[in-house]
């Protein structure tokens, strides 16, 4: 049986019905067509599905849409404003912090929160802070470089 929820996503309120077993990531991708949030695993490990739920980075594959009722969700589609990339997105672009790009939306969402909590992290703190996000391509070096670049503001 469907259950009524009201979830605000990237500033737009959606009042709709969802099956209780609907995962937040599927609500975003399949109900709202916001396919920037990815699914990379079945085990809550990869972090490709990371979004902000009431301002906190969470794995949207491990939250039920009904648990997000009344909450505000921000996805990768919601971090840029007026067609301008977010500085973290720009940093990933400029330092080649991605190859296939599958992990990138989740990385960016987690990395922005990392810098909010710790504006000037060491490389070790960046690696530790992104522990919940796996990348199969880059070997992480350029991801760390991207976060460092975003932290120091050296992007054009």
């Amino acid at each position, binding site marked *: 049986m469907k259950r009524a929820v009201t979830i605000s996503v990237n500033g737009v309120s959606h009042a709709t019905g969802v*099956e209780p077993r609907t*995962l937040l990531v599927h609500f975003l991708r399949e109900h709202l067509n916001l396919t920037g949030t990815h699914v990379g695993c079945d085990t809550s490990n990869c972090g490709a599905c990371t979004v902000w739920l009431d301002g906190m980075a969470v794995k949207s594959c491990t939250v039920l849409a009904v*648990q997000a009722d009344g909450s505000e969700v921000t996805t990768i589609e919601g971090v840029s404003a007026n067609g301008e990339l977010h500085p973290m997105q720009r940093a990933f672009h400029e330092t080649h912090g991605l190859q296939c790009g599958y992990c990138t939306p989740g990385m960016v969402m*987690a990395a922005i929160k990392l810098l909010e909590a710790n504006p000037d992290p060491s490389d070790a703190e960046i690696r530790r802070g992104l*522990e919940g996000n796996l990348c199969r391509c880059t070997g992480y070096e350029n991801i760390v470089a991207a976060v460092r670049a975003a932290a120091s503001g050296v992007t054009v």
Partner: protein
Amino acid sequence: MIPQAFEYEQPSSVADAIAMLGKHGGEARVLAGGHSLLPMMKLRLAAPDALIDIGRIASLRGITDTPDAITIGALTTHAEVAGAEVIASGCPILAETAAGIGDLQVRNRGTIGGSIANADPHGDLPAVLLALDGEATAEGPNGRRTIAAADLFVDYLQTSLSPDEILTEVRVPKASNSAYVKFNRRAQDWAIVGAAAVVHGSSARIALTGVGSKPVRAAAVEAAFDGSNTAEAAGHAADGLDAPSDTAASGEYRAHLARVLVRRALEAAMAR
């Protein structure tokens, strides 16, 4: 994968939640942070008929400081425990343990009550609660009771909570000379073995995770410890232990880890 269909209930009080558990007669599960239960449901290792989502019960949140102890509401997240000043100063082992669970995203959702109730044999908090000699409060149809950590963990994923009880809060005594050290190989992995040490002068309470189906006290270390002989006492950490072998490690290696990690935990606790 998507979990099997279930009925979803959203109680607004503990009393409501207990009534809903009763209504579903043992086929319902409590949902807290969902970071153990939902992964199991996605893999269809669990398929409850109903979920009683306690996530909106405000009385289950928050941290209360008293002179000798700290009381933590069951729904308090790992991130909140890790970030609380009263816990960092009064019970550093708990703050450090919460800060080391999983990853940032897991800590933002997972709760202290869920970790204790789940009793994963590789979980960090059950061993820490045992070393601290802490306790959990549970409420059920027959009222409220307090369960000492020593009586709480029964077996693999099993506690002495009954299926119609809600764990409402966790209480830990203050313990400034306390530390938790775990070992794993990969980022975000559960502990292969973890050691919790709580030192009071010349005595210590030590508990281990990852060496059996539930957390255990390292009684031989506790008996040997005299307040300064950390290396010698820690050498007894695997005495009487029959640690399991699996894909992560052999039993022999776990015994080795237990000895090393107990020494490090004792040293760290005494240095605080």
